[in-house]
């Protein structure tokens, strides 16, 4: 089921928590809203759920206007951060609840509950109460309860943040598989960029009530539009340098040999940034920088300040004068105090806006 969010605002007093968000979510898409706490992602989700009413704007589900409809009339399911399980009911009764409300008959209900429980590996736990379950098990009950109804839309509000890292990785794949198999349109809210990258068909990076960039994970990773997005995704984050647009469509920065010729689709964007008086930045991912010998042709000499060997990769923190940045390479013999040459391939440099205001339309 497609979801349309049209210029939605949510205001508490003077505070604009959601500031004119518009997006079309396609049927069957796994759509992730990513951002730090306070960016408005959860509030937007809750408005789609019907747990909050927008101050302005419209929300449609499957073409029907649901802006002011009650949650129970929207045919959605939701998984909460603290699971929202009914403490005084068994796992079976928890999962059964939505079916009971819809007045399905007893045998039908039992069948569906058992089916869904099997799918989520809860078969043995059906008679336990939530207080007797581990975090991961509770999470699966919460998912089972949501899926047992075969909803049109599945909303998930940071469902994995209360789990430990290992469990999170495991549950991540399970959820994605489940939901993809069933073809349910999903909106997933998180502040964890790895979750977002791993699971999403598209990511909406949000900040201060706005969707700063909406694109596929790789697109966001390769071509972040603003400093916020560039630094939020990727660890270590993208290196960014204040830059200038030269006549002839070249962008240069303070570092020699870090220069980029704009290709056609970038020209408009760069012009937009400069016209809007936002700062222009030149950015490059740490793993795209190449380590060469000091003084090599086309390389910029840099002083190595710190080397972090992480096993699979190595982080090299360097400085050129006052400018500091990071390189990620394979195993290396470079050590602190060395001077190395750094090559920044022109085609891997990106034009990035310093200010989110530029991208708001």
């Amino acid at each position, binding site marked *: 089921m497609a979801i349309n969010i049209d210029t939605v605002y949510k205001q508490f007093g003077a505070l604009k928590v959601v500031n004119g968000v518009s997006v079309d979510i396609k049927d069957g898409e796994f759509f992730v809203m990513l951002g730090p706490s*306070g*960016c*408005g992602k959860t509030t937007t989700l809750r408005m789609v759920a019907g747990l909050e009413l927008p101050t302005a704007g419209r929300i449609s589900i499957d073409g029907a206007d649901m802006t002011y409809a009650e949650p129970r009339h929207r045919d959605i399911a939701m998984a909460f951060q603290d699971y929202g399980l009914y403490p005084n009911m068994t796992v079976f009764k928890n999962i059964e609840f939505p079916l009971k409300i819809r007045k399905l008959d007893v045998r039908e209900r039992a069948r569906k509950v058992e089916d869904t429980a099997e799918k989520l590996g809860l078969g043995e736990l059906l008679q336990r109460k939530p207080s007797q379950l581990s975090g991961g098990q509770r999470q699966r009950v919460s998912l089972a309860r949501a899926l047992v109804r075969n909803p049109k839309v599945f909303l998930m509000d940071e469902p994995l943040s209360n789990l430990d890292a290992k469990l999170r990785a495991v549950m991540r794949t399970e959820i994605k598989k489940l939901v993809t198999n069933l073809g349910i349109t999903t909106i997933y809210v998180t502040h964890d*960029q790895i979750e977002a990258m791993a699971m999403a068909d598209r990511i909406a990076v949000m900040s201060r009530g706005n969707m700063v960039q909406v694109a596929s994970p790789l697109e966001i990773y390769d071509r972040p539009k603003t400093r916020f997005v560039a*630094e939020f995704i990727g660890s270590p984050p993208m290196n960014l340098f204040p830059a200038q647009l030269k006549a002839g469509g070249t962008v240069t920065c303070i570092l020699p040999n870090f220069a980029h010729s704009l290709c056609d689709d970038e020209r408009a964007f760069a012009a937009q940034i400069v016209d809007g008086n936002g700062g222009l930045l030149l950015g490059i991912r740490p793993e795209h920088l190449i380590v060469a010998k000091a003084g090599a042709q086309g390389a910029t000499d840099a002083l190595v300040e710190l080397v972090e060997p992480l096993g699979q990769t190595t982080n090299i*923190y360097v400085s050129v004068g006052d400018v*500091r940045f990071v390189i990620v390479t394979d195993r290396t013999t470079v050590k602190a105090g060395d001077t190395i040459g750094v090559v920044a391939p022109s085609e891997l440099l990106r034009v990035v806006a310093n200010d989110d205001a530029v991208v708001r339309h």
Partner: protein
Amino acid sequence: MAKSGTINAPALQLGATKAVRAGEKSVPTLLLAPTMIIMTIVGLYPLLHSLYISLTNYNPTFGTSYSFIGFANYARAFGDGQFWYSVGLTLAFTAISVALSLTLAVLLALLFNQYRFGFVVLRTFLLIPMLITPIAVGITWRTMMMPDLGVLNYLLSLIGVSHLSWASSPSSALASVILVDVWQWTPFMFIIIFAGLRSLPKSPFEAAAIDGAGHLATFMNVTLPMLKPVIVIATLLRVVDAFRTYDTVYIITRGGPDFATDLLSVYLQRVNFRIFDLGYGSALSWIALVIVLVVVLVFVNLTGFLKLVADKENR
């Protein structure tokens, strides 16, 4: 190196988003209606009526007609020595009784905070006094405090203390009544403070132990500050109730001897329902009400009570 993912965005307090949902606009009003109706009919209306009566000279023993006399009753009240004596007596009674109860309650809470065998049972005995009907409490203590036949004087005589006059002498009557009040209501403060004590986190105490603080230092610097909200609530509730003490005094001394225990409620009851000077009595009641409000306001201000409550809400 810039930190990824942390932006100075204003934090969203999800607890505050109790927005009205579709079709729920009238629900809160409906839910609050019964309470508001009861409050208005049974609370506000009589209160305002009382204000009106206080401006008249209504006295049923003189018939059902009465006339409006403006603030004459209030003027009379200001010159009524007996009334102000009662007020002062009640304030003194409240202050002493609550202070004693509070101290005793805190000490008992500290004592019973230890996990010893049998303490749970002993604690149960502590609870009972506040459950007993105050009239029954009055009856029992009056029996026990009889100077010639009472068991208290008997027990005291066993250890060599001579004949006390308890509630029958003006000099010791107030103290006796305070004793009864402390006996009955310390458990109330005890429960609240004890529950507070039991729920305090362990780590500050462990930190204090490592820092080398002794029992007294720990109590003054760690326990007491953390107990403040609980102590404030218990004290406020007790102060308001102590001010209204009536039942036990009615049974034990009826306000005597020689008006030694003529607390405000007792005096007002006499004016209103023995003499039936209802106009005057209403005026006095209103002045009493104002005094209570002032006491509460002073208390609330001194202890930052409202802030405590508000903090809890915004969690």
